[in-house]
């Protein structure tokens, strides 16, 4: 494999919660985003998925580990390199409405990243913005409108256009279709696929909706309480997941073609507070297979099958595969 475009190595993010205490939102996460792929990141709210994305983009300071862009540590970047990096990695947020400034027209909002970067002449910037808006399927009459005059789907298109004007290589989509109706969601997902091909994008797609992630992603990482618990290709994960949490997550997804209640594993309780995570495997409080050992030893994410790693101590007993066997 060539050098990954963007990689996180053992990245941790801690936030102060008062009284000298900290919450570790992301705990030793490693991810590799290779050129041209779509990596899906799933997990419940509170699992740290958004924080991973923000850490990767430099929107939150990391307290441990390294973020690398094309193999180089971003913390060592000077102002110029830093600017190049932020142009190359852009984000589309969840709520299309609050991501747009209500006092700016769509064209102004979409042009803004270029204005900030002082790129070229104003006219050229305007042209780039108009082109991006065309690419996302917004007609020219929308340019002078304000966010409140647009529908949810149109607003999300404008947000995508704004992420594209800097001609990025990586697009981070944080729950970008969660606020939309099914029919609109399908339109935006189709649009993202088209743009991915046209702009040769690499995508980090964050969502709690497994059917959406399964549809767009080539590989999927599953997060739980700040840790990645399973990493696999989409086929491998959906076909045969090797971690009890992923299994429960997959089975909880309501499906139209299968209403059998038997396949469902209903997890008890809520995700524990990351301020005081349970000792050992962080999933042990809700895992139906948890044993004494799971409360003592924290399982590392180890390869099980080629391209498929899992952080469960009991992989061998539960799934009949040895940990640390397959190629990394």
């Amino acid at each position: 494999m060539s050098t990954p475009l963007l990689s996180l190595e053992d990245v941790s993010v801690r936030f102060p919660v008062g009284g000298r205490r900290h919450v570790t939102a992301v705990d030793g996460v490693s991810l590799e985003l290779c050129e041209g792929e779509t990596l899906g990141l799933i997990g419940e709210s509170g699992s740290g998925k958004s924080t991973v994305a923000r850490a990767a983009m430099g929107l939150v300071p990391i307290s441990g580990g390294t973020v690398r862009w094309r193999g180089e540590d971003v913390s060592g970047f000077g102002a110029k390199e830093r600017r190049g990096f932020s142009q190359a990695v852009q984000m589309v947020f969840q709520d299309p409405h609050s991501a747009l400034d209500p006092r700016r027209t769509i064209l102004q909002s979409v042009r803004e990243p270029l204005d900030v970067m002082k790129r070229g002449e104003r006219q050229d910037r305007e042209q780039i913005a108009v082109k991006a808006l065309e690419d996302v399927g917004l007609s020219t009459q929308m340019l002078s409108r304000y966010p409140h005059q647009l529908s949810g789907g149109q607003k999300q298109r404008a947000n995508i256009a704004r992420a594209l004007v800097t001609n990025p290589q990586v697009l981070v989509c944080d729950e970008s279709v969660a606020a939309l109706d099914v029919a609109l969601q399908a339109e935006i997902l189709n649009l993202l696929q088209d743009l991915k091909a046209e702009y040769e994008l690499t995508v980090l797609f964050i969502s709690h909706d497994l059917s959406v992630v399964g549809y767009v992603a080539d590989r999927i990482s599953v997060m739980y309480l700040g840790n990645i618990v399973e990493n696999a290709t989409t086929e491998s994960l959906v076909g045969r997941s090797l971690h009890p949490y992923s299994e429960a997550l997959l089975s909880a997804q309501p499906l139209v073609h299968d209403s059998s209640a038997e396949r469902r594993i209903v997890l008890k309780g809520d995700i524990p507070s990351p301020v005081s995570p349970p000792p050992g495997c962080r999933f042990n409080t809700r895992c139906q297979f948890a044993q004494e050992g799971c409360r003592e030893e924290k399982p590392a994410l180890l390869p099980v099958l080629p391209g498929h790693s899992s952080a469960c101590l009991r992989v061998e007993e539960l799934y009949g595969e040895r940990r640390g066997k397959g190629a990394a």
Partner: protein
Amino acid sequence: MALLTVEGLQVHFGHDENQVQALYDVDLTIEPGEIVGLVGESGSGKTVTSLALMGLLDPRSSRIEGRAVLDGQPLWNERGERNAARRDVPLAMVFQEPMTALDPVFTVGSQLMETLRTRRGMDKAQARAESVALLDAVGISDPKARMKAYPHELSGGMRQRVMIAIALACDPKLLIADEPTTAVDVTIQAQLLDLIKSLARERGMSVLFVTHDLGVVSETCDRMITMYAGRIVERGPVAEVLGSPGHPYTMGLLAALPSPGSRGERLATIPGRVPPPGTTVEGCVFRPRCPFAVDECTKPQDLIPLSTAREARCIRSRELDFQGVAR
């Protein structure tokens, strides 16, 4: 006898020339113990239907026509005025966002007891004991301690359980659940769906489940009703409707669902948007977005029976075979 019978429900908003119609001739019945799904995109009229039934539409800005009878009691009189004795109507509602539906400055215990004391006329001690029992019934651990908790101290799933407990405090025969699981994670959604199903079964309670998620409908509901632009366009048993939809709109909603199996393929979309209330479309309202529209579709459409329990508002549903999902 049906628990709820609604006939010719029409809702208008605004006055005089600014008046727009939000619901057109909605008829529906719910049998005791039945879970009925009400499905559609935003703007299809599902929430207006449930708010009208709950009596939550402001009479100064809206006008209700038609008849609705729940358990033998009319919900409003001929002039659309709300039944004065509404408090005794065995009807309750659970809303989408529990954080905004609960009062942030009162403990969940006091909010539960308030309902019990006004609706069921209990004294303080009775209300307290009943509140603890209700919290226990909705699966909240250590209910006595949770009585003293404020909404912000609870997780999203727990708050929604409290909302369900408050709804149950009215001892409803019909529970209207408006997108109750949209704001929570899938794992919590699975817990809440199980809870609602088991409560319906144990108490013989009917549920009108408003949702845009066909997966949820497939898991929880017995029958489903598809709404579009303020009209019912299809209804029938869930398995039959999802297996072979009778209306192109239901088919479109199904086809737009992504799944790992369809990776790399383009998702089917429904071109255009739900027309805003007040728009007049000649004939079938779905015609401008329908891939199967023919000249005859410009005539007004009625619900056409397809089988004993199924109806669809599409003249071509018998001749065309709309793609459903294999179950």
